[in-house]
């Protein structure tokens, strides 16, 4: 009996393909006996086109959008014409070759056990390319095409049994289709045909591929009716389909196990996607996992299989892709991917280009200058105080919680606390030693980052070397080192690395994530740089609009770290305080505009004025500075006149922003130190200024090419000469920073506090302008990581502050105040008066404390004069919840942790990976993208 063929032509917004498909259908050598045109809610001309070809027969499927759904709906309205009826499934783009149906029918007629036959799907645009021919699964159930994207050289023209074939062009016996219940509604697009074929096989039917039947295809099935599909959405659809099939195929016993692993696996796979630099797929993974966990269609699908299955799962095992072949295919893909990588840029090599030499010289200079710290366990002085003694304490000082500084309060930690915690963890046996290490390695590290950054923009070896010299001898860097401004030091070391990462971020997720981490560290270390850096980032985004999605993400980790602080400072209405220098507040000089222009962050002429005045040459300092800086200034400005403006103009823009930031920062006095205020530490802004100048000099040297030797030499000599007094001061120990024994309080207090961490020491510091400043040290003292800009910029007197002030005022006087009760309540066992000039209030304070019979004078200590309150009653010091002690604190900690961890995963450099790109109709299905 002659089989009857009912072709189902399903169109969804396929007007651009339909004319060709309809024509091809009409040109079949064996015409289908009946054609059912189905329109799936098209908004274009598709219905009209089909109606024109097949008047009056159009089936509309309101409310459905999937291929399988439309098919079921259409078949429900068309009665079967008999047992030997075949369905030929065609999408709007599936224009069949003239002999396609004939070939398919020919194949199924000779083999009665065959219920499903699939054609060879050819690319619509390039008919020689096989888009797909057959689908299969791995042992673990992942679906994959048997053949995809291969040039048709008749290599697959052997008719063979397949596990599954695509829905497009599929010829299926209608009785089998009906018996199996059609396509699984739980699989809207991907794997629907594969799943159907698997069920057909389990029901005892065969599925074959017919190579002589060729049908065109414009794209994968998930693209059906869509213009394009992002990589993330594509991944989500595929993953959802795979999980649905896993839950459907799994033996009943293991179902619970599978269900329980859905979400954990989704999380793990998300992390893997991050490491593989596919952050766009993370959402899809999680959505697919959660969706599968609450997938109501699994039960129906499982019942369907149970009803129709006659053979065991072992019957299809042979048709799965064997592991060996799978490995081979992956190896092949990798080989293809590597072959298509972008060619490496030509640039100076680190060893061949002199980078190693510059770093080595910087290391020697660093050793000469800071070698005296080689045996130090901690550094203190200027803005530096020792860190907490253990890693656990370090990490307890991050996040949102009780800040044990001053009278204590509950609030957000500075993001810088994270930086310190990470640093301290590196030298976990003695966290304070990490600061010593930074000092020992500061110069070579600065030289290294500067060289690497410069090498990225340079083609000549000595250009980066000059940049490294300029950067390592930068006055703001050396002054920050001498003054113990650790944040500024870290920012200076990392700025070139940040530039390098941001520039690379336009093309690479790993670089973008690395830039995000570097930006977070730089922002946390020197918040003053944030406006300028964000502005520069915006400029870079404008220059690279296609990479905006990667560049925008650079600010995310920093934003997450700063968010709690921003909320609190805005709540106080003190938004300028956000830019306050983190760390131990110290009074710094306010430099004038000219001093800023020569890169001097704390006033003065880099020590030349004092040095030459000492030699009896007044005003000689200005001459030296002008002469030493002249080559740098001339070359930087000259760069604008020379070719290479793509580099020199951005560099000068960086310099301008850095300078303007420094001028503004010098006029923002938000940090309070007792009765005084001090401006934001401007050195980081000057580092940015210096970075721009160095970049401009580099651009000029590049343009001068072979004539650059003398200018390069002059610039290097000038900058190094300029810094000689700074180097000398650091080398001879005339800087604020000095070796410390790591103790913040007198040994007597440390000994007591070792057994009583809540023991408080009230520090009363007579102020230069009269009055006294109070602070409380708990336990071993207020460490570097416990410092808080929220505290240092607070212009309000809290209840606890007022209480402390009352106690201090009465301690500093003959008074009838019940001092003992208050000392007990606040658990203050010691009173410390730091050394200083003999102001009237110091005399008064010392006399009053001396005359207080409650206090036993211990005497002069390394930290000042100490009194002991021996009658301290047992009690509990005022305290608050830790970082994890409140829901909001734990939430903040978790949120910041997750964001930073994800960025870190994304930043881990991995080898080139296959990446799924946004698929558009007509695109090749999978492409390899360079990192």
């Amino acid at each position, binding site marked *: 009996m002659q089989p009857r063929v009912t072709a189902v032509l399903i169109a969804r917004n396929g007007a651009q393909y339909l004319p060709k498909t309809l024509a091809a259908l009409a040109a079949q050598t064996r015409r289908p006996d009946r054609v059912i045109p189905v329109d799936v809610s098209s908004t274009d001309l598709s219905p009209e086109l089909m109606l024109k070809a097949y008047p009056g027969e159009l089936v509309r499927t309101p409310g459905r959008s999937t291929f399988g759904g439309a098919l079921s709906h259409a078949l429900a309205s068309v009665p079967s014409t008999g047992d030997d009826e075949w369905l030929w499934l065609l999408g709007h783009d599936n224009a069949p070759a003239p002999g396609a149906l004939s070939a398919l029918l020919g194949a199924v007629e000779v083999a009665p056990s065959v219920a499903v036959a699939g054609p060879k799907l050819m690319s619509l645009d390039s008919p020689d390319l096989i888009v797909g021919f057959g689908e299969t699964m791995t042992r673990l159930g992942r679906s994959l095409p048997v053949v995809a994207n291969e040039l048709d050289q008749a290599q697959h023209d052997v008719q063979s049994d397949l596990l599954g074939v695509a829905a497009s062009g599929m010829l299926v016996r209608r009785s089998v289709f009906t018996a199996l219940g059609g396509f699984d509604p739980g699989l809207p697009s991907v794997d629907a045909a594969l799943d159907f074929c698997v069920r057909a096989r389990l029901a005892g039917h065969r599925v074959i591929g017919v190579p002589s039947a060729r049908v065109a295809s414009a794209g994968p099935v998930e693209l059906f009716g869509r213009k394009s599909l992002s990589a993330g959405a594509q991944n989500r659809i595929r993953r959802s389909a795979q999980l649905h099939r896993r839950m459907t195929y799994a033996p009943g016993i293991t179902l619970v196990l599978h269900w329980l692993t859905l979400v954990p696996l989704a999380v793990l796979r998300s992390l893997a996607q991050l490491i593989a630099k596919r952050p766009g797929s993370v959402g899809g993974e999680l959505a697919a996992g959660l969706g599968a966990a609450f997938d109501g269609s699994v039960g129906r699908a499982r019942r369907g299989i149970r009803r129709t299955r006659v053979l065991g799962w072992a019957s299809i095992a042979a048709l799965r892709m064997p592991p060996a072949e799978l490995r081979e295919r992956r190896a092949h893909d990798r080989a293809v991917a590597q072959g298509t990588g972008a060619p490496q840029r030509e640039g100076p090599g680190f060893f061949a280009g002199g980078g190693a030499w510059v770093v080595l010289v910087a290391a020697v200079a660093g050793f000469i200058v800071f070698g005296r710290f080689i045996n130090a366990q901690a550094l203190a002085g200027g803005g530096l105080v020792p860190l907490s003694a253990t890693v656990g304490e370090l990490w307890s000082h991050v996040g949102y919680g009780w800040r044990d500084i*001053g*009278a204590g309060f509950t609030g957000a930690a500075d993001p810088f606390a994270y930086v310190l915690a990470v640093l301290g963890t590196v030298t976990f046996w003695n966290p304070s030693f990490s600061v010593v290490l930074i000092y020992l390695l500061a110069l070579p590290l600065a030289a290294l980052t500067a060289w690497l950054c410069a090498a990225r923009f340079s083609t000549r070896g000595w250009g980066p070397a000059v940049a490294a010299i300029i950067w390592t001898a930068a006055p703001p860097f050396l002054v920050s080192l001498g003054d113990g401004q650790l944040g500024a030091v870290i920012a200076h070391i990392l700025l070139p690395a940040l530039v390098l990462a941001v520039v690379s971020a336009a093309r690479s997720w790993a670089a973008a994530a690395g830039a995000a981490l570097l930006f977070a560290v730089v922002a946390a270390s020197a918040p003053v740089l944030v406006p300028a850096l964000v502005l520069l980032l915006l400029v870079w985004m404008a220059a690279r609009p296609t990479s905006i999605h990667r560049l925008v993400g650079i600010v995310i980790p920093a934003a997450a770290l700063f968010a709690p602080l921003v909320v609190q400072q805005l709540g106080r209405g*003190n938004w*300028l305080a956000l830019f306050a220098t983190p760390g131990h507040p110290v009074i710094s000089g306010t430099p*004038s*505009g000219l001093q*800023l*222009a020569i890169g001097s962050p704390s006033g003065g002429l880099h020590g030349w004025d004092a040095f030459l005045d000492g030699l009896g040459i007044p005003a000689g300092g200005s001459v030296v500075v002008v002469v030493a800086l002249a080559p740098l200034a001339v070359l930087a*400005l*000259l760069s*604008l*006149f020379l*070719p*290479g*403006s*793509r580099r020199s*103009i951005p560099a*000068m*823009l960086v310099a*301008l922003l850095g*300078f*303007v930031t420094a001028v503004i920062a010098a*006029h*923002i*006095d*938000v940090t*309070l130190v007792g*009765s*005084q*205020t001090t*401006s934001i530490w401007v050195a980081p802004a000057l580092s940015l200024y210096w970075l721009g100048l160095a970049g401009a000099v580099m651009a000029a040297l590049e343009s001068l090419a072979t004539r650059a030797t003398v200018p390069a030499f002059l610039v290097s000599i000038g900058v190094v000469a300029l810094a000689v007094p700074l180097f000398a001061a650091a080398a001879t120990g005339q800087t604020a920073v000095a070796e410390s024994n790591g103790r913040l309080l007198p040994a007597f207090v440390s000994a007591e506090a070792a057994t009583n961490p809540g023991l408080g020491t009230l520090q009363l510091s007579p*102020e230069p302008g*009269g*009055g*006294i*400043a*109070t602070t409380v040290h708990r336990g071993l003292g207020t460490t570097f990581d416990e410092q808080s800009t929220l505290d240092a910029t*607070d*212009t*309000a*007197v809290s209840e606890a*502050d*007022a209480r*402390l*002030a*009352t106690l*201090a*005022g*009465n301690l*500093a*006087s003959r*008074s*009838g*105040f019940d001092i003992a009760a208050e000392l007990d309540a606040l658990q203050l066992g010691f009173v410390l008066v730091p050394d200083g000039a003999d102001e009237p*209030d110091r005399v*008064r304070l010392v*006399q009053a404390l*001396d*005359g207080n*019979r409650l206090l036993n004078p211990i005497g002069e200590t390394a930290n000042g004069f100490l009194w002991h309150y021996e009658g301290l009653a047992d009690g509990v010091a005022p305290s608050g919840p830790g970082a994890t002690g409140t829901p909001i604190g734990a939430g903040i900690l978790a949120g910041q942790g997750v964001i930073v961890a994800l960025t870190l995963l994304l930043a881990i450099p991995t080898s080139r990976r296959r990446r799924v790109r946004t698929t558009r109709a007509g695109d090749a299905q999978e492409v390899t993208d360079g990192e």
Partner: protein
Amino acid sequence: MSDTELPPAAEPDLFPEQEDEVVATREPLTARRVAIVGVRLVAGVVGLGVATVTIAASVLLPLPTVSSTPPSTLVTPVPTAQQQVCPGAVLRLADDTGQGATTSSALGVPTTSSASSSGSVTRTPLQQSDASTGGTAEAPVVISTPPNAADPAEVILLSGAQSQQVNEGDFVGLAAATCSAVSADSWLVGGSTAVGRTTLLTLSNPTEVPATVDLELFGENGAITAPGTSGIVVPASGQRVLSLAGFAPDVVSPVVHVTSTGGQVTAELQQSTVRGLEPGGLDIVGATVAPATEVVIPGLRVDDLASVQTLLVGGASFADLQTVLRLYAPGEGTVSTTISVIPEDGVGTGTSFPYEFDAGRVAEVPITDLESGNYTVRIVADAPTLAAVRVSNAAPAANADTPAATDFAWLTAAVALTTTAQLTVATGPSPLLHIANPTTAAVSMTLTAAGGEGTIVELPAGASTSLPVEGGETYTLSGFDTLYAAVSLAGDGMIARYSAQPSGAGSEPIRVYR
């Protein structure tokens, strides 16, 4: 300013970087090349301009500074009981029998008067003393008055004074002293350790903690170093009595600087003079004003110049009957002073002369031939200076066999009173209240005896005067801006004097920063 000029500078960025090759291959001068060079020139000039304008603006523009105000609290200490210490009995080294030359003992009981504006005064003797007077009426007395519980801010005035007329063996004379508040730093100008002159240093610590006292001694030859001058522990509620001769023997004009840590003390010198076998008087010398460039010593009382002058010719041992001004300036170099001796009420002849002396050494300036009368001594120096005056009083001998009765008094500098003050007059012969106004503005002062009517005293600029007052009575001085006051007692061959102390000063409020 400069930021707005940036966009034009960014223009050349749009040009591709093939410029390098253009230069390298030295293409002929085309319009394109001219344009590129022109744009570069513009970029450079604009960049140069932006740089100049920015730096110039940062230097020249008066940029505002955003500054936070450091938060602070003005803490007014909770008032506590005020206390002052009265020096206690006049002491002697060795007892009545001449034994125990290193231990001191009391010479009778002083008469102490005290009062407070709140009416309540507690008197407590110090519990320990080197003179074995601890806890007795002979011991230094602590007078104290509690704050007003209802109104802690009320200023309560407290004052006290003591006097003692001694007539025991070699010790004959009148000594009077004010009770004074403790201090961590006091200067004593007076005394002598020359032959026949005994000077004791008494340190009284009324506080609850032991005081550690360091002494610095200076004499006519400069600083005196001696063992035992540092780390002298004065126990809580205790008195130490030290012989100055133990540190500085044979010093005619000592000056002692007393500093204490821990508890605070009051310090006095007690000088007694014996000329051969004749008693020469005694006195208690309180702390004087810390070194200052203006020193005012009111109450120089010369009752009988002739008697003193008669005795002065009696030999070297009588030389210290001469009225003398002792000067000391810490530090080095020469100090130029103008010394004025101004008669009270403008009556009589004063004198004013310049005087120079070496800082670091104690200088003595005789003030000779003052007519009988009352004077105020004022020293204006170009460096902080200490000063005190010794004045003697002699009664003419009744007959040739009995010696003339002589006594002397050390006149310490008076503290400038700038607010209402209270003054207790010690009991003794013919007490006088001396007030001096060395300022250039007239002063009107109201003197109110306890429970009495106020008397208004007008004092022109630069004038001084004295008023008879009642011994044992307490007076309130009010209504003035700046005033110096002292009380003198004098009889035949007896003289004593002390300066008025500011009273009632509670602890000043103190500013406390966070």
